[in-house]
């Protein structure tokens, strides 16, 4: 297109060639291959550590964040070139992080200057791993019905209550947490707090899921003291922050529709003898490639500030339903092989466990039904929605 961008592309290509270790240019086999960072993270290889360090130092874990806060300071077209060049060599994401995909954008919009300087660079370098304290036993789809209380104790809040479905709470260093600071108004009594998971009074308990995995936890708060400078936005105005963050969470989850960088399925399930299975795979691949185009368009529109604020809901719905269908088809193609649960041959039942894991996709981050309701209300403006 333009010369500066061409130069940026060739410089980026050269830099990646020199700095991306070969082991980091292979597809991730599962969530376990992701680099999550944090105080207690055990790197799977020296290459994984090195990749995080060189990318973090350049701010390219968060290419479009301002460089003042540890980001790469890239323009939208430059960030797209970086994504394309990383995809070209099959480079793994150096850091998978709720700090990057959820908290960071919310802090950039609602955080004080001090909060941005304190938290964002740590996120960019992968030093602190964050978890999300949103859902509660009595507040799932009706999230604003949450009851975890934070009492004003002068210089700090005292937090008591329970969260559930807290992803990786047992491995996280800090939490961004919705709490009730007033019971006078449902949505208008919620505040957004940040605190250390090592604070006295915080306990976590992993939940065993149907997949046999335990990515989610119950998290309990018993007289947890949170300094007041760790409130994001104004007291009782946390719902705005919460909703803004949810848009980013949904944007992240919608990426599940992309099949981990390989959208099509029919060319990777092995020999297909059954013409009916072939037809289903072909129909799936049409939808998957169309969704991939949509995803590219959506990100371009987001970065250009042209996306409707409710579009992440549409994308989250479409991407997660597609991912569930992908795994239904992987199971169908795999037949009885795919049903093995504990054999070495099946890598400990990987296909079956991954298939069951995807069933959470259309629940976590707001159910498909919640997303459809948001689209009906905010985009279609249907009455009473």
């Amino acid at each position, binding site marked *: 297109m333009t010369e500066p961008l061409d130069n940026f592309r060739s410089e980026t290509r050269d830099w990646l060639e020199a700095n991306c270790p070969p082991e980091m240019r292979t597809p991730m086999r599962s969530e376990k291959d992701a680099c999550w960072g944090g105080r207690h993270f055990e790197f799977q290889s020296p290459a994984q550590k090195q990749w995080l360090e060189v990318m973090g130092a350049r701010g390219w874990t968060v290419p479009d964040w301002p460089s003042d806060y540890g980001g790469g300071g890239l323009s939208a*077209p430059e960030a*797209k070139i970086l994504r394309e060049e990383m995809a070209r060599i099959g480079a793994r994401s150096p850091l998978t992080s709720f700090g990057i995909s959820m908290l960071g954008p919310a802090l950039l919009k609602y955080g004080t200057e001090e909060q941005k300087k304190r938290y964002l660079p740590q996120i960019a370098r992968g030093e602190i791993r964050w978890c999300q304290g949103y859902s509660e036993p009595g507040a799932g789809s009706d999230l604003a019905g949450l009851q975890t209380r934070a009492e004003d104790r002068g210089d700090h809040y005292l937090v008591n209550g329970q969260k559930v479905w807290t992803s990786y709470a047992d491995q996280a260093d800090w939490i961004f947490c919705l709490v009730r600071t007033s019971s006078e108004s449902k949505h208008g009594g919620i505040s957004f707090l940040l605190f250390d998971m090592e604070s006295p009074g915080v306990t976590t308990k992993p939940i065993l899921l149907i997949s046999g995995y335990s990515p989610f936890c119950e998290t309990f708060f018993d007289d947890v003291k949170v300094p007041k400078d760790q409130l994001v936005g104004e007291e009782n105005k946390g719902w705005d922050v919460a909703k803004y963050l949810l848009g980013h969470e949904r944007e992240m989850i919608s990426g599940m529709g992309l099949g981990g960088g390989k959208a*099509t399925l*029919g*060319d990777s399930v092995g020999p*297909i003898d059954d013409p009916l299975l*072939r*037809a289903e*795979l*072909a*129909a799936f*691949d*049409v*939808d998957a*490639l*169309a*969704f991939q*185009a*949509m995803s*590219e*368009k*959506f990100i*371009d*529109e987001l970065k*250009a500030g*042209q996306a409707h604020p409710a579009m992440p809901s*549409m994308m989250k*719905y*479409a991407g997660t339903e597609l991912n569930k269908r992908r795994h239904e088809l992987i199971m169908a193609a795999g037949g009885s092989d795919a049903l093995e649960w504990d054999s070495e041959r099946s890598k400990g039942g990987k296909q079956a466990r991954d298939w069951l894991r995807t069933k959470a996709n259309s629940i976590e981050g707001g159910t498909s*039904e919640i*997303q*459809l*309701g948001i*689209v*009906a209300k905010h*985009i*279609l*403006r*249907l*009455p*009473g*929605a």
Partner: protein
Amino acid sequence: MMILTDDQRMLQDTVRPFMADEGAIKTQLRHWRDTNCKDGFGHGLWKQFAELGLTGILVPEAQGGAGLGMIEAGVVLEEIGRNLTPSPFLTTAVAAVRALEGSAQAERWFPGIVAGETVAALAIDEGRNHDPARIECRAERSGNGFTLSGQKQFVVHGGSADVLLIAARTAGSAGEREGVTLFAIGKDASGLTLDSAGLADSSKAARITLDRVAVDADAVVGDVDGGWAPLSRALNAGRAGAASELVGVAAGAAEMTFDYLKQRKQFGRLIGEFQALQHRAAHLYGEIEIARAAALKAAQLLDAGDYRAELMTSVAKAKAARVGALAVQEGVQMHGGIGMTDEHDIGLYMKREAVLSELFGGPRFHAGEVARLSGY
């Protein structure tokens, strides 16, 4: 970037009100249908297209056209779809122009196309389902030229066409891509008979019989036995264009339906208040967005000459057809009884969608192409 440029937006801003006004269902589709027009479209509107520079949208500037690409053609086609505007734009200005470009035949036909005076039609299909590799129509060498025999069907606008682009076999056998040759033949050729019929959407398509039709060698578009090249250029453009038009049909039907949900009352409430309908409407909205992105991506890859263009074109055509079908079916269902009447426009969307879905290959054909191109 998957975002329209300022110039493309300006084109959209021009074409959208033009089509909604001049190309409206009442003044075009219903008018020509109800007056039993033999063409099924108005030549006056085709002239207006020319005045706006639309008929030559893909024609190179050196040959009097606008020299634009499939993204711009797609912008126009989405508005055509939204208004069900009958015109030979897709067959003539998109598919035929792509077939003829760069050939000696271009000099002969482009001026008339740019001026809005010439209509071209593609004669490809020989059976009830699109399968261009299975062409059996024969063209035998004779003297300085060729003699064509065979039959064609689903030749959209064939009865109105000044020139027919006919794919025939000069070598090889049905199922092979090699050995196909594309001919540009005037409508008055001796031995060519044409039986034009109205389709469900009130457009016209012809069945053509070729009985030893003699043509000169200069009727060949591109190379003898190498007709697959211009043919696939025409088909890719036609398919990507049909995908954009289908997105417009789906969007037009959906907008009409979403409006209806906000007006119609039952049980003392607007029916749009019912969650059973809200979720289906929201799902439809998302599917249309996805189909539009697929059509844009296909157009972009075609314009860039990217190797993935053929795959993405099949994706776009298949997806747009599926989504178009969903939109018109939900449209009629959500309108209830009034949706079944000829008086209401929503049913017209269903009929147009069915024809566009089949044109240049239906969703099953294109899903098969996606599988073939992906190697399974």
